[in-house]
């Protein structure tokens, strides 16, 4: 029996476990997946919780419900990967799990303790985040009774998962305070280390205009060093300061500690891989998928989905000793919720920036690209259903893994 070990049963790990369990022979392969947490969180839903659009039960399901029969699931913390021995030590019963092939899908995680003053006495009082379930819940409670003032959203480090989430948060906040009748009492500021609202020029310019129209103050190239919770200011390395009454942060995101501890990651604990086929640059029987990998594209569920398709096709060839011919192009596809029941869709890859046009989706679309529409909002809402029912289960989606230029205006 050959052993395939998957570390992490989040979006990427669960998807590949499902896909591979259909195509690898059960007589020849034993597939095992390890995760420390019983609950699968629908992380894109964390964005909606602070505004009461989703409740707690909308974003959680048991992980086991998504692990296919025939795949062994172990609930345990992963302590150490020992690539030279082809084994992984887990906390449960101090066991070693041996593998022929290893897939690392341990994701990326918010690390508030990386920023001085953040994780201190004001954490979850006047300083919040929405990148965790607990954070989104606490912020929902806070916003229900907040009476207004300066709300500052600050992105603390690059890269972070779902690069459009801070923009969406601000758009939804604008709408939320409008509905509550206190928009005139709220000053909204978005501070980011990026030179604009997004990295790629055309999307940055459109999203920058949208911020202007909604009366949101954008502070670009703001790279925070620390928070001063007593004086309620956030301080950048270049000594600029932004005062706030309510600070919402996207904390420093880092890959799992076990990756760093095992010598498998870069300075952010991301696993260096070939950006076209996800094979580790250090070991020829280790792959990294999803947010755990050091890929020069967005860290997003949609990327993990497109990547998983390319990965499975290649993996079947690789285990037969054949070259990996499928090439991942960095395809990312994000619905950006823009408030007031509308959304914007962007579609891009390693080489092509988000362009305006139409995104054809058989049976449902088309969606407008780089432009606000109600249809795009419904796309975002539909995404949750697709996530639980299609994506995680590794079923075919009616979209291609590679980006297509069809419908885009150049």
């Amino acid at each position, binding site marked *: 029996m050959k052993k395939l070990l998957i570390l992490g049963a989040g979006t990427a790990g669960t998807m590949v476990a499902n896909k591979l369990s259909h195509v690898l022979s059960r007589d020849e392969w034993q597939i095992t997946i390890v995760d420390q947490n019983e609950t699968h969180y629908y992380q894109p839903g964390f964005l909606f919780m602070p505004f009461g659009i989703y409740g707690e039960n909308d974003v959680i399901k048991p992980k086991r419900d998504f692990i296919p029969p025939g795949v062994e699931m172990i609930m345990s913390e992963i302590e150490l990967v020992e690539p030279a021995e082809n084994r992984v030590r887990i906390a449960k019963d101090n066991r070693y799990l041996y593998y022929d092939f290893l897939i690392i899908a341990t994701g990326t995680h918010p690390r508030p303790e990386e920023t001085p003053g953040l994780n201190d006495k004001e954490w979850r009082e006047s300083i919040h985040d929405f990148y965790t379930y607990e954070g989104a819940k606490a912020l929902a409670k806070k916003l229900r009774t907040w009476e207004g003032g300066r709300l500052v959203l600050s992105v603390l*480090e*690059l*890269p972070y998962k779902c*690069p459009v989430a801070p923009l969406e948060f601000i758009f939804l906040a604008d709408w939320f305070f409008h509905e509550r009748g206190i928009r005139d009492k709220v000053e909204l500021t978005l501070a980011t280390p*990026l*030179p604009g609202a*997004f*990295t*790629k020029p055309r999307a940055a310019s459109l999203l920058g205009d949208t911020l202007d129209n909604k009366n949101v103050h954008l502070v670009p*190239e703001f*790279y925070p*060093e620390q928070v001063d919770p007593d004086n309620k200011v956030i301080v950048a*390395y*270049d000594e600029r300061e932004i005062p706030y009454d309510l600070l919402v942060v996207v904390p420093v995101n880092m890959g799992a500690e076990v990756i760093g501890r095992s010598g498998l990651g*870069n*300075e*952010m604990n991301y696993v260096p891989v070939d950006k076209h086929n996800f094979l580790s640059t250090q070991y020829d029987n280790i792959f990294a998928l999803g947010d755990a990998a050091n890929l*020069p*594209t*967005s860290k997003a569920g949609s990327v993990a989905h497109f990547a998983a398709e390319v990965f499975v096709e290649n993996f079947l060839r690789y285990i037969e000793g054949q070259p990996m011919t499928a090439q991942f192009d960095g395809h990312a596809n994000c619905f950006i919720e823009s408030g007031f029941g509308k959304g914007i869709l962007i579609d891009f890859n390693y080489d092509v920036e988000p362009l305006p046009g139409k995104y054809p989706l058989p049976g449902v679309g088309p969606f407008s690209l780089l432009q606000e529409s109600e249809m795009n909002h419904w796309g975002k809402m539909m995404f949750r259903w697709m996530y639980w029912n299609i994506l995680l289960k590794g079923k075919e989606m009616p979209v291609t893994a590679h980006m297509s230029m069809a419908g885009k205006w150049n």
Partner: protein
Amino acid sequence: MSEREIAGKTVRFAEDGFMADPAEWDKGVAEALASEIGIAPLTEQHWKVIEFCRSDFAAQGDAPTLRRIMKVGGVPTKELYKLFPKGPAKKVAYVAGLKKPSGCI
């Protein structure tokens, strides 16, 4: 792509204004590029950062982020802002003859 005469050499630049080929770089070019953006003279601390970035680029294929210069190169971010004020990651890449940092999204 464009060409400019810098420190007695012909140097090629990409459209974004960063050098097109790190191999065309030398210390004289670095000094000229640095003074163009108001950083002069280059001190020992500047050179330490520039040299780290060049060797890291050679190994990784990307200009390092500030966190990487801090964690791997051992230079605190605060100091980088003093050496290369306002946008140190971009400025040091420019002076070191590397391509524009990708910005990680």
